[in-house]
């Protein structure tokens, strides 16, 4: 089951790379994708049945504009702080807590936080994330969790959990 | 002018090999000499207005650069990496035995 997912992804990538549809490319691509699936199949995804649920892809489409909007807002915030003559920054590392269970969801959350300007995820330990924040607004864990994580967490739980 | 700069790069690597007394610096100097040689070969093969020597449909009669130096350099790059790895492994072993990268001290601790 896990290997089938990787087989499909690898075959699609092969078609994208070669961009030719004659029998030679197709047969060799089939063989290569089979080899890749055989070698790396069991580490590709943890729960492969989730890849076939269309609802998750729709939630992902819903997630993208929200993430972009948060990005743009944070961009303007950081630009304001940089251009301000007195540089009102207050950097520090805070510890926040996430409700997400699977590895993939945690990584996606950490990457979303990193890609938003101003915040940068440093490490993940079990269910705690360590985040470098350009303007620490509260040292408290629950408060920081509400400010940073909960923007994305609800939708990511729908996508990955 | 370009040839002269290539030779200058080679000479800097040679300077590292001759003057430096740290094993890792000597390996870095050798790598720089290798790079200078690859660069010299690629510069010699370049042809004014030429394209990369790969025939595609409709460009069978295009002006190509000289493929021979490229073919010689292609294998030499990989060999250079293997030689660097061999040198590094020797340096690591010497460090384990003598506790230093300084070649003067290594000579004194012989035996």
């Amino acid at each position, binding site marked *: 089951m896990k290997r089938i997912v990787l087989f499909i992804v690898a075959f699609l990538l092969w078609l994208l*790379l070669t961009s030719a549809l004659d029998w030679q490319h197709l047969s060799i691509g089939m063989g290569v994708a089979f080899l890749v699936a055989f070698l*790396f199949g069991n580490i590709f995804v943890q729960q492969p049945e989730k890849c076939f649920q269309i609802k998750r892809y729709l939630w992902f489409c819903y997630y993208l504009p929200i993430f972009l909007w948060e990005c743009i807002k944070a961009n303007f915030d950081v630009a304001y702080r940089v251009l301000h003559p007195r540089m009102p920054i207050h950097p520090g590392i805070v510890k926040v807590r996430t409700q997400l269970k699977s590895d993939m969801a945690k990584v996606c959350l950490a990457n979303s936080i990193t890609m938003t300007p101003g915040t940068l995820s440093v490490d993940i330990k079990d269910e705690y994330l360590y985040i470098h924040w350009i303007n620490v607004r509260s040292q408290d864990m629950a408060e920081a969790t509400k400010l940073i994580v909960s923007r994305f967490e609800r939708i990511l739980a729908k996508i990955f959990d | 002018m370009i040839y002269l700069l290539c030779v200058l790069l080679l000479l800097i690597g040679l300077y590292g090999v001759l003057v430096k007394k740290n094993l890792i610096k000597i390996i870095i100097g050798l790598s720089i000499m290798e790079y200078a040689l690859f660069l010299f070969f690629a510069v010699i093969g370049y042809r004014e207005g030429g394209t990369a020597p790969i025939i595609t449909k409709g460009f069978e009669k295009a002006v190509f650069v000289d493929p021979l130096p490229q073919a010689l350099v292609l294998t030499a790059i990989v060999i250079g990496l293997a030689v660097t790895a061999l040198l590094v492994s020797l340096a*690591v072993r010497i460090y384990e035995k003598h506790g230093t990268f300084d070649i003067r001290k290594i000579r004194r601790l012989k035996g």
Partner: protein
Amino acid sequence: MRGMTLIVKTITRLIVGLIFLYGIYIVFHGHLTPGGGFAGGIIIAGAFILLVLAEGSEELSTEVKKWRASLFESLGIFIFWFLAMLGVFAGTFFFLNLLPKGKPLELLSAGIILPCNIGIGIEVGAALFAIFITLAVLKGKGDKE
């Protein structure tokens, strides 16, 4: 060598197979596009090295990996030598390109160049991975218990 954080591990698991596929693509198209056995072999070795760096060498049984890398290295150089000797076996001279040429600009063409590329790719990939794995299992000052 210890492994890296969860972020690096998860992303590595996602992309390592695709890097491997890209290396094989470079090897197979060596006679049509830039690339070939040397470049593709190094990319294949890079995929495995990325896996070892992310997961940490203590998780993997490195002795087995080194043994396998040596085996594949010998296999690759044997393929290359065998293809070169094909000419001698057929009664002509060394390194004769006697497989059918095929039509130009197709994937399965150019005689022995494609299988030679595959042999070189296996050899180079296994060789560089063997170098890395021997350096990685060394114990030095940087690794703390």
